[in-house]
């Protein structure tokens, strides 16, 4: 009898799992944060100053829960509509690689930190929510608020922006990107993202 129950429950579990609601956005952020912090703490590549393996490990964890297409569209702004589907695809890839290059440096800068979670305010029919977390810094510095903008998709809740101390990581690129597009077109923006060539800004108008 017990055996039958066990088999039954095993058979039924996946059915129930797919039938239930996707993981709540705040639970998802919490689980991911814990996993990422765990990787940062335990991985010994980082101690040797090697970021690449750690970045790839974190990427595997986190990437399925980011809406890269929406992030890129938000960073590019209005001009996104003028890009061809093929250009959009390349923009997504190039923007993502640029983010990884930029923020993998940050991993070594921000390690042993505690993360607090603020209670989530959300009503059942919300299509997007703001999950608020607080990074408690070592050494008496003021805590830093890190908010994740999460949107509901067919594949569950996915982040489309990270807001650090009120500064949106994604939309903050908009002015820069628009300027690049005005000067060199969408192709120019893709190229500058891919090559990471930094035009020297003399500051003169």
């Amino acid at each position, binding site marked *: 009898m017990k055996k039958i129950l066990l088999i039954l429950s095993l058979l039924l579990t996946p059915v129930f799992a797919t039938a239930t609601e996707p993981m709540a956005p705040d639970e998802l952020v919490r689980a991911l944060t814990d996993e990422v912090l765990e990787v940062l703490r335990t991985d010994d590549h980082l101690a040797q100053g090697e970021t690449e393996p750690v970045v790839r490990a974190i990427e595997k964890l986190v990437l399925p829960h980011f809406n890269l*297409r*929406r992030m890129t*569209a*938000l960073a*590019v*702004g*209005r001009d*996104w*509509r003028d890009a061809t589907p093929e250009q959009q695809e390349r923009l997504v890839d190039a923007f993502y690689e640029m983010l990884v*290059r*930029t*923020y993998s*440096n*940050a991993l070594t*800068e*921000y390690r042993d930190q505690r993360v607090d979670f603020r209670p989530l305010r959300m009503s059942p029919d919300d*299509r*997007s929510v703001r999950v608020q977390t607080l990074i408690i810094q070592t*050494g*008496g*510095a*003021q*805590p830093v*608020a890190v908010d994740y*903008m999460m*949107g509901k998709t067919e594949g569950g809740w996915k982040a*489309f*922006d990270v807001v650090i*101390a*009120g*500064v*949106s990581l994604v*939309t*903050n*690129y*908009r*002015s*820069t990107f*628009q*300027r*690049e597009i*005005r000067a060199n077109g969408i192709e120019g923006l893709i190229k*500058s993202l891919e090559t990471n060539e*930094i*035009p020297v*800004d*003399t*500051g*003169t*108008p």
Partner: protein
Amino acid sequence: MTGKRGSRAALIALACAVVMTTGCASRPHNPDDPLEGYNRAMFAFNDGVDRAVVKPVAQAYETAVPQLVRTGMGNVFGNIRDVWTGVNNLLQGKLEEGMSDVMRVAMNSTFGIFGLFDIASEAGLEKHNEDFGQTLAVWGVGEGPFIVLPFFGPSTLRDTTALPLDSFAYGRTAIDHVPTRNTVTAVRLVHLRAGLLRAERAMGEPSDKYAFVRDAWLQNRRYRVHDGNPPVDDLYEDFDEEVSGPRHLFDADAVADAALTKLEFAEVAAVTNDHSAMIEGMRR
């Protein structure tokens, strides 16, 4: 004499105007930044000063002074700053936060040994960030255009008017002896700059540093003014939505907010109308 001075002032004004207009003409207009031409020039100047003097000193400070000492220094400066934060919280009518700041200063100045240790945070008294610019904002003063000040860096017209009082308050609450005060100010600035080194390393080098810093600064400033809950504007417009045109994620919220604001205005208007009607009645 006055005529000469006057014409010179006019000339300078004209030169500024020329710089501003030519500066603006060459790029897309940003509604937050009508002074972009001047701002870019001043930003480049500040960046030069930073590269030549401030940043190297801050880097030296970061390597030479041990973390423990830097934390202590940060706590002392933070404790002094908490006084002004508390005053501003009270000026903004936030009694609970203001009293909490007073408690923080009292605890850290005594048990925390002149502010060397931030035991108030450990005890669960949250650290706030307020200044007179934010108080003016709460009192209803608009932000005005974005301005890059020489040496001080990014600001807005509103925060610039608040700046003399803010810096007076920091200096005043610290020490009366002028050379000591100047030294402390210099050390405080170096300490603040050193605190930004880490963020700078994490940020990398964006292609248009000016635009990047301006937008980040404005977003952070608005976030502070609204105590961590800035109004969500159309940052998150859905650019992928082509069929139904631009659609705002927070449309419903925005409409609700607008309706609420209107209601509040209507109420205020009703009250003032009543009031004036009453005065009118008394006159008769």
